[in-house]
């Protein structure tokens, strides 16, 4: 969250005495505050044309066979409760609880054969393409951090990488994408990570922030107080730039969904702020989809968000199918709204949307009505970014146990995302802690998916 605090001698409108310190709490990326970030970004330079990625992480491992790869020829203990429906692309069928996505299948690419999961309950592999084991010093950077490093901000006053995940009990699901060895300057801006609902600027909420007069009065007061102490002169260019971000309103406006037409917000489905499932995963917050669109429109290159709790082992926390009946329609509403909105704004070729989880789920339904972890194969959904949509990639065997054709590794998907951003995974590198150049994916094995480019 944003916090702007003033002089220890002064008292602001909330009556609380503040220390003379400019802090951008929500922009504190792994302990680094915004000025440091901007300093680092400056070294990275500004990128080329503005392409963006929105990555939706389905925390917990979504059931591939109940979403995009229904197994109607399997026995009932594997087949499950759902029926497939036709889509706008003849021959492609998906779950009955995803009717809106089915209607726009010509814009989508379900991948039915994601392989290489290390089976860990974490966003890590979706964020980095790498496994947690045997990491280099500093850790693997997430793709958002790599993009931040390579391309920098696309627009003044807008960070290149934003993670919308709120705080969760399971921190590995809340992971918006770590900076790793590219450095904390490239960690995401995480406006929801503090668990607070609203941005605050010296106690000013978003509503007040929208009131430029009130905002400027407060900032002017801050400036006067800091100036009188001589401390403003000590602010380096990056601090001043941070102040510029705050006063530009660009980021705050992007996150202020009240500026949207309520009808459009309704179309996205709004959603809940309460974390889903056991409270340890992300909420079914469809506002995040809308916020993601507003952020990429404002110049953010990579937006990540965690959506729902997909770890459905069964009773007493609801069967796999009860949870799916709960989650799938809401995902269907939010995701379809996002894709329609991007299309309506002409952004469909500039913004890539990637939806996936850390692994799939067991073919056999357990005694509690759940499906357990199944790292051997999982699914993903791609859209936008100028890819060749309206096709399914890969297949699993009759029981959904393993990839039968065209296994697709996590790194191939991320290589495709990099390609959509204009980054050549055969050439681009980032230096690790030892100054050694590292490729973004293991490009000897994994390339952008040729079916899509």
């Amino acid at each position, binding site marked *: 969250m944003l916090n702007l605090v003033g002089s220890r001698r002064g008292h602001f409108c909330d009556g609380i005495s503040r220390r003379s310190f400019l802090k951008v709490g929500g922009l504190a990326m792994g302990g680094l505050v915004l000025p440091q970030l901007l300093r680092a970004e400056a070294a990275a330079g500004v990128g080329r044309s503005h392409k963006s990625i929105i990555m939706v992480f389905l925390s917990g491992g979504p059931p591939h066979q109940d979403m995009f790869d229904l197994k109607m020829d399997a026995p009932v203990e594997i087949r499950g409760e759902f029926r497939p429906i036709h889509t706008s692309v003849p021959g492609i069928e998906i779950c009955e609880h995803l009717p809106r996505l089915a209607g726009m299948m010509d814009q989508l690419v379900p991948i039915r054969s994601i392989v290489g999961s290390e089976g860990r309950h974490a966003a890590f592999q979706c964020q980095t393409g790498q496994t947690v084991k045997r990491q280099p010093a500093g850790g693997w950077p997430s793709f958002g951090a790599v993009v931040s490093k390579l391309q920098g901000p696309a627009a003044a006053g807008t960070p290149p990488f934003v993670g919308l995940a709120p705080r969760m009990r399971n921190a590995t699901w809340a992971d918006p994408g770590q900076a790793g060895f590219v450095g904390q300057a490239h960690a995401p801006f995480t406006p929801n990570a503090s668990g607070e609902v609203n941005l605050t600027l010296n106690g000013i909420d978003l509503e007040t922030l929208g009131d430029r007069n009130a905002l400027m009065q407060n900032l002017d007061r801050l400036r006067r107080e800091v100036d009188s102490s001589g401390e403003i002169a000590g602010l380096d260019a990056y601090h001043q730039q941070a102040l510029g971000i705050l006063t530009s309103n660009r980021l705050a406006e992007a996150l202020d969904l009240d500026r949207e037409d309520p009808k459009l917000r309704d179309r996205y489905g709004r959603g*809940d702020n309460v974390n889903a*499932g056991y*409270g340890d995963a992300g909420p079914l917050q469809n506002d995040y989809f809308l916020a993601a669109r507003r952020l990429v429109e404002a110049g953010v290159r990579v937006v990540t968000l965690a959506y729902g709790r997909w770890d459905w082992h069964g009773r*007493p926390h609801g069967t796999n199918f*009860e949870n799916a009946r709960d989650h799938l329609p809401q995902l269907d509403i939010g995701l379809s709204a996002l894709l329609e909105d991007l299309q309506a704004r002409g952004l469909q070729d500039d913004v890539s949307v990637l939806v996936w989880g850390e692994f799939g789920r067991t073919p056999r339904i357990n005694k509690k009505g759940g499906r357990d972890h199944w790292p051997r194969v999982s699914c993903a959904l791609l859209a936008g970014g100028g890819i060749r949509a309206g096709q399914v990639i890969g297949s699993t065997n009759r029981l959904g146990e393993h990839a039968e054709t065209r296994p697709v590794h996590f790194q191939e998907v991320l290589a495709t995302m990099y390609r959509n951003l204009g980054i050549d995974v055969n050439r681009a590198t980032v230096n690790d802690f030892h100054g050694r150049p590292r490729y973004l994916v293991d490009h000897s094995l994994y390339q952008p998916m040729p079916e899509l480019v």
Partner: protein
Amino acid sequence: MAACFCSQTDETSLLTTNDLPAMEPTHIFRHPNAAYGAAFSPDGKRLATASLDNTAKLWSLESGDELLTLRGHGDGVCAVEFLDEGKQVATASLDKTVRIWAADSGTLLASLSGHQNYLTSFAVSADETLFATGGFDNVARIWQRRGGATLQVLGGFGGPVYAVAFAPSGTELATGCEDQSLQLWDVATGQVRRTFEGHSGVVESLAFSPDGGTLAAALGDQSVRTWDAASGRLLATCTGHTGVVKCVTYSPDGKRLLSGGQDGTLRWWDAASGQQVATVRGHANSVYDVAFSEDGRSVASASFDRFIKVWPTPA
């Protein structure tokens, strides 16, 4: 949390059968996560609801307002009941505890613990002196409400105990299990008195008729069945649900049965014949609990779709 009083709609279609006019809920309430339980206060003015969001809530049926949220459980709340003419509320939670709260202030008054795994079923004896619970530790427990002492630990189950129900006399307890067993226990001795047969599937919910003569079960085989409690003879089989039947209860006069199921429907049955009287497709997901008001004029349904709805009882 939005409290809704005849104003909020969801996408659930309401369908009635048997030529009844379309039925509309009189109240709609919502938790931010699945709703697992509902109970009317004895005076019919409040509704208590239990949710997988780890809370129970009290709602005014007069104003539609949310009155109170009972926080403190560490996992989903699977059942809720009013005690002492509505002055207290008991909640049972997957966190393995039963808690008693002051219904006016939400103050926690007592907490009972003993289960070694998820607690998933809960019942209060008619005189409110005893509690019964069942859990994923494959046991049922009978507790003294005052002091929380365990009177009996009932074992021998081959799976989680999904259902417990006291006979109106308080001397017998029925249990239903994932292993499909349906048994009647002597509360004083902890011995099995009778086993009920003739069904297949998990026993999801149990209810005694107000006179104690009949035991009804909601079953995984998509049926509701009734047995003569004294002899164990199967009396009726109610069919019509198109999925697991999750919950069942008797009307206060004992003439109707009400069930809710995985198919999102509430179904009213003639208790004697087992004939379906009315159906409403009230929810978009499994119905986990149904309850009659004490005057029998209203029913409440709690669903995994997060909604709790109050309906008029069909004529």
